[in-house]
Each structure stands twice: as structure tokens, then as C-alpha cells.
């Protein structure tokens, strides 16, 4: 694989006034080549684009899916409830606290005084219980609530939509933290070798033999998850607690690969050359070897994300995941187990998990193909 890596040799034409200048051939880095290869793998590439766009959109969800109005024109004044809190009395409603903007919209349009309310596309929030719906929750899917409501009369679609952002953010942060530790420890074990390696391997074996979900359940029952209302999820301490717990059990997977790569790379000539030149050890490890050992790190990542999301869904299902009102896929599936006749509580969240994971798996397969190509030659 290394042969194709070498960039075309560029001849130096420093004093070459006599020779006609060679046509400039830009060298293409190995990384560029792989990205190009990745783009040719349509299934993976389009899955990647879809995920990227969906994740991007999920950050502007408050504008698209929310119970707060975007703009209110009331008695000639403009208000932006999505940005600022207004008491209900501001709009002539005799309620306490935040006004019900959907009700305000109907009221204002009935009064017909030139006022209007611009609601988001899907005017429900992920944490509000829609108590005015007829019948008792969970409600069937209907025109207003395309995926029905859950057992606390919260709209399932909004919870799934916000849950996408939560799940992916969570998985990415866990991946980032566990990669920092995994790559660091893996490269140390591989580079230093010897006694440290034997000792480290043993610790990793013990650590990875600990029953992961068991330990998580024990540990999360120590700290009662507190949900601070009105705060962004990323600022919730319990969110970070769960991330740390998962990362603590997640870093081992990548160490095996990185350690192996370092063992292989450190025997190569360029490392010998670097040592001879007196390059410092950390520089050899991280500037010279690490870029060459990144193949498994990159191709392992999508599958690690799949595992992280699956773990979060399982923990939420059991009730040991993110604290209560956080929109979560696993929690909905758990509700579905209690209301087996209410199929929408199982099918829609499961479909969300399934489609997301499938897209990531497609990306992962294409990344692996681009970064770690295996050509199968067959005679017949």
C-alpha cells in the first residue's frame, strides 16, 4: 500500500534555465487521494452528505420545530419570542408565565386586527405535555402529531428530531474523548514497548473484561442525574457525567489498533532517520509515526459511533441514560414496551435508530474501503 503513497518526484529546476521547464505536476497527498476515492463510493458518500446535512439542520431545530413563535406582530409592535421571553400579559392573555403561542395565533387571527403570529413549521416542543388533546395519552398519530404522542402527551416526532441531535452529539463527544486517551495510550504502549507494554496490556485486559453495562448501572446509580431546567443539554452536568462514564469504557478498542500500527511503523527507516537526527521522542511519536498510523483510527471511527449510539439507546431504554426530560430514542422504546398496543412508540424511534445507524454504517464501509483498500483478485 505504501508504494502508491509516494508522490511523484518533482524535479528541482533551480538552475534549469537551459532545460525547458517541466509541466508543473501537483503532488497529491495520500489523504487527498483517499478523500477522492471516498467520493467515488457513492453509497457511502451520499450517506455522509445526508448525515452531515441532517446534523447541521438539527442545530437549527428550535427554529423549525418549537412551540415558541418566531415572530409576533401584536398591536403594531414586533416581538421575537424565539429569542426573548415575554410574559403572557404582554399579548393580552391572562395566563401566568410563557404564553401558548398556538392559542395566541388562533386568537389573533380571529380578532383580525392586522396582527399575526409566525409559528415554526412544526409548532410543538420536545418537552411540553399537550394536555388539551382529547383522550388520554399516548395519542395515535394524527394530522397534527404525525407520529402520535408518548405517555406524557409529548409529541413523538419532535422528541425524535431533537433526539437525533442529542444522540449524535453524545456519540461524537464520547468518540473524541475516548480517542484522545486511546490513541495516546496505544501509541505509548506501541512505541515504548517492553515492560510498560506488558503491564499496560494486562490493565487493558482487566478493564475490557469488566462487564460494561453492569458497571455503568452501578456507577450511574451513585450519582442521581439532575436535570437543570432551561439549560442547554451540553451544559447539563449529567450529560457530561454519562459521557465520561462511557468514555472510560470506550478507549480500549482503539488502543489495540494504534499499538499494532506503532509496532509496525517504529521499525521503519524513517523512524531510524529521525532518531539519528536527534528528533525528540514525543516529536517522533506524534509528528512522524502518528500520521502514518491513522488508518485504523479513521476507519474505526464510524463503527465506534454506531456502538456509542447503540449504548446510549440501551442505557436510555433501561432508564440509566440521560436525565428525564431529555429527548431520547431509547426512552421512547422503553415506553413502547409498557404500551405494546401503541405501536408508534416502538416503530418510529426504532426506525430513527435504524436509519441513522444504517447511514453511519454505509459511511464506515466506504471509509474503510477508501482508507484501507483490499483488492481481491480472482482468477475466474
Amino acid at each position, binding site marked *: 500500500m505504501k508504494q502508491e503513497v509516494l508522490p511523484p518526484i518533482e524535479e528541482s529546476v533551480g538552475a534549469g534555465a537551459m532545460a525547458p521547464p517541466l509541466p508543473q505536476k501537483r503532488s497529491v497527498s495520500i489523504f487527498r487521494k483517499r478523500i477522492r476515492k471516498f467520493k467515488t463510493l457513492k453509497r457511502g458518500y451520499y450517506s455522509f452528505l445526508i448525515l452531515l446535512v441532517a446534523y447541521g439542520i438539527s442545530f437549527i431545530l428550535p427554529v423549525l420545530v418549537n412551540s415558541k413563535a418566531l415572530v409576533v406582530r401584536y398591536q403594531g409592535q414586533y416581538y421575537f419570542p424565539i429569542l426573548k421571553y415575554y410574559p403572557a400579559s404582554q399579548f393580552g392573555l391572562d395566563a401566568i408565565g410563557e404564553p401558548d403561542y398556538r392559542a395566541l395565533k388562533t386568537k389573533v387571527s380571529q380578532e383580525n386586527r392586522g396582527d399575526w403570529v409566525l409559528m415554526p413549521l412544526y409548532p410543538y416542543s420536545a418537552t411540553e405535555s399537550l394536555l388539551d388533546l382529547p383522550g388520554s395519552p399516548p395519542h395515535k398519530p394524527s394530522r397534527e402529531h404525525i407520529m402520535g404522542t408518548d405517555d406524557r402527551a409529548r409529541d413523538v416526532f419532535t422528541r425524535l428530531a431533537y433526539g437525533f441531535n442529542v444522540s449524535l452529539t453524545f456519540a461524537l463527544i464520547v468518540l473524541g474523548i475516548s480517542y484522545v486517551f486511546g490513541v495516546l495510550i496505544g501509541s505509548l504502549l506501541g512505541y515504548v514497548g517492553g515492560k510498560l507494554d506488558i503491564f499496560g496490556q494486562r490493565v487493558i485486559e482487566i478493564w475490557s473484561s469488566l462487564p460494561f453495562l453492569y458497571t455503568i448501572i*452501578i456507577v450511574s446509580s451513585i450519582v442521581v442525574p439532575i436535570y437543570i431546567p432551561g439549560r442547554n443539554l451540553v451544559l447539563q452536568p449529567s450529560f457530561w457525567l454519562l459521557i465520561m462514564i462511557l468514555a472510560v469504557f470506550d478507549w480500549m478498542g482503539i488502543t489495540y489498533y494504534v499499538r499494532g500500527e506503532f509496532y509496525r511503523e517504529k521499525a521503519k527507516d524513517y523512524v531510524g532517520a529521525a532518531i539519528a537526527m536527534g528528533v525528540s521522542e514525543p516529536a517522533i511519536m506524534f509528528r512522524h509515526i502518528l500520521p502514518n498510523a491513522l488508518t485504523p483510527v479513521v476507519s474505526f471511527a464510524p463503527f465506534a459511533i454506531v456502538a456509542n449510539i447503540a449504548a446510549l439507546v440501551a442505557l436510555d431504554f433501561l432508564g440509566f441514560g440521560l436525565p428525564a426530560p431529555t429527548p431520547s430514542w431509547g426512552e421512547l422504546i422503553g415506553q413502547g*414496551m409498557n404500551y405494546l398496543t401503541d405501536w408508534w412508540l416502538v416503530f418510529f424511534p426504532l426506525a430513527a435508530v*435504524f436509519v441513522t445507524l444504517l447511514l453511519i*454504517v454505509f459511511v464506515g464501509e466506504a471509509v474503510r474501503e477508501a482508507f484501507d483498500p483490499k483488492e481481491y483478485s480472482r482468477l475466474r
Partner: protein
Amino acid sequence: MTGYFLRRFLLIIPTFLGITLAVFVIMHFVPGGPVERQIMRYKMAMQEGGGGGRASVEIPAEAIEEMKRYYGFDKPVHVRYALWLWNLMHLDLGRSYIYQDPVWDVIKSRFPISIFLGMTGFLLSYLVCVPLGVWKAVKHGTKFDFISSFIVFLGYSVPGWALGTALLVLFGGGSFLDWFPLGGFRPDNWEYLGFFQKITAQIHYMFLPVVCYMIAEFATLTILTKNSLMENLGQDYVRTAFAKGLNENRVIFLHALRNSLIPIATGLGHVISIILAGSFLIEKVFNIDGMGYLGYTSILQRDYPVALGILVISSLLLLVGNILSDIIYVIVDPRIRFK
């Protein structure tokens, strides 16, 4: 080679000590342990019995001390761990806090269920995945390969237990089809059934859980088989065999396939741990009282002796299974030398 495996077996001891010590220490420091639960229960009972509406009931300090002594929490953690190890060496896992039976009896009663479920799932997934992987390799690049790959990806993208909830909604008689029972291991009238009725009843109950077990293995095993065979088909000895004029079936099935089964055979070592550990999530979804579910509930109820007992069994099986895999590796592939 014998020396190598002997050393591997000896290394089980420190690893095992490490695992149990870590879990033991975590359990010791988690609040809401058995003593606190006992106190809670006592207070609740007093409040209900007294009925006087008193906000709090004081428990005498001696009683708490007594309780601590009963559960062994009066000693420091290292002493407790040493005691527990000492008892373990005498094959005594202690008594369950909840069931009041010896731990071993509690666990033993769950063995048949877990072994049955794990074994069936395991055998079926090998019976399906290996031939499928072989066929995909033979038909590489065809429509069959493409479509089956897609199905494999579908299987990989859904956690087995989560699929279980959907299967229950679909086939468990909730809102759609009433084909399978909602859960459980066997029907209640099991003892009164005839031999053939028992077989059909067991299949009836086990069909959905086994499907969920298989989903987990399905993707990895199929792709492993396919890639392994593909790799062998590109080797020189296959080229030679074709050059000699052997027919295709003979080359694939007699020459290449045998070599490509090596990585699959090594997975067999983990059988013992897969069979027993099972997935407590699947057992929970289908309400099956297996080992995994027992472990889960014992942690929730702070029944530490049972939880530790299951940890001992499952971690020993895991560690032995790792070595067993390597031994099988050596047996099926004589080129391998460990030192």
C-alpha cells in the same frame, strides 16, 4: 507451546483478581447498599404500621450495627474482599440477600435457560452465516451479493434487543398479529405437555428471542466468512489449482474453503462465554429468566453476592474462552506457533 498456554492460564489469576477487585470496590462504595435498603424498608414498615403520621422513625444505633454485621459491612473493604476470596476458594459464593438461598443454587436454576437460548442462537447463526458468507464470496459482485450485503447491513444497524421490541409489537398480539407469546421461556402448563407438544411449544416461545440473538452475530460472521474466503481465492495456491485444471467447485470447496474457515473456527472458543452470558437486554425484553437478567436484577436490588457470583462465572468463562480460541487456532492451523 505447552509452556505458552500454561503461562496464559496462570495469567488468568491476576486478571481475575483485578476484575473482581474492581467490581467489589465499586460495589462497596455505592450508596444504597443492602444495609441502607434494609433500613429504608424498616422505616416504611414502621410508618405504615404505626400509622401515627410521624415523619421519621429513629432506628437504634445498635440495630444498624447489627444489620451491618449481618451483611458484613462492619469490616473494611479489603478485609471483606479477602473474606470473599477465601470463601470463593472453598467454592462458597455466599447467600443471596433477596432469595435467602445459596448463590450457587440461585444461579444454577438459570443455567438451563441461558444455555438453551445461547446454544440455539449460536448454532443457528453459524448454520446460516457461514454458508451465506461462502455463497456471497462465490457470487462476489453479482446481484445476489449486493442484495444480501444490503440485508447484512440492515441487520448490523439494529440492536438485537431493540428489534425484539418491534417483533413483540408486530407478532406478540399487541396491535397486529398474534403469532407468538409475549415473552417467557416456556408455557405455564409445560409439565402436562407431551413430547411433541413440548417441542412445538418451545419453538413457539423461543422463535423471536433466537432471531434477536442471531441478528447480533449475523453481520459480523457473514462478512468474516466472505472476506476470509475472498482472501484465499486470491492466493497463489488457488491459482495453481485452477492451472492444474481442477474444476471450480473442487478448488473453492476443498482447497480454499478449508483455509478460510480458520478465523471462523477460532471464534468457537468464545462459545462458552456467549452461551452463558447471553444478552440481558434480550432477556429483559422477552421476560426470560436467564443468567443475564438475573445479573441485571441482582445489581438493581443490590443483591451483591449474586451479582458477584455471576461476575465470577462470566469472567472466568471469558478468560478461558480467550485461551480456548488460541488453542483451537493452533489445532486447525498447524503453521501457527505461539511462544
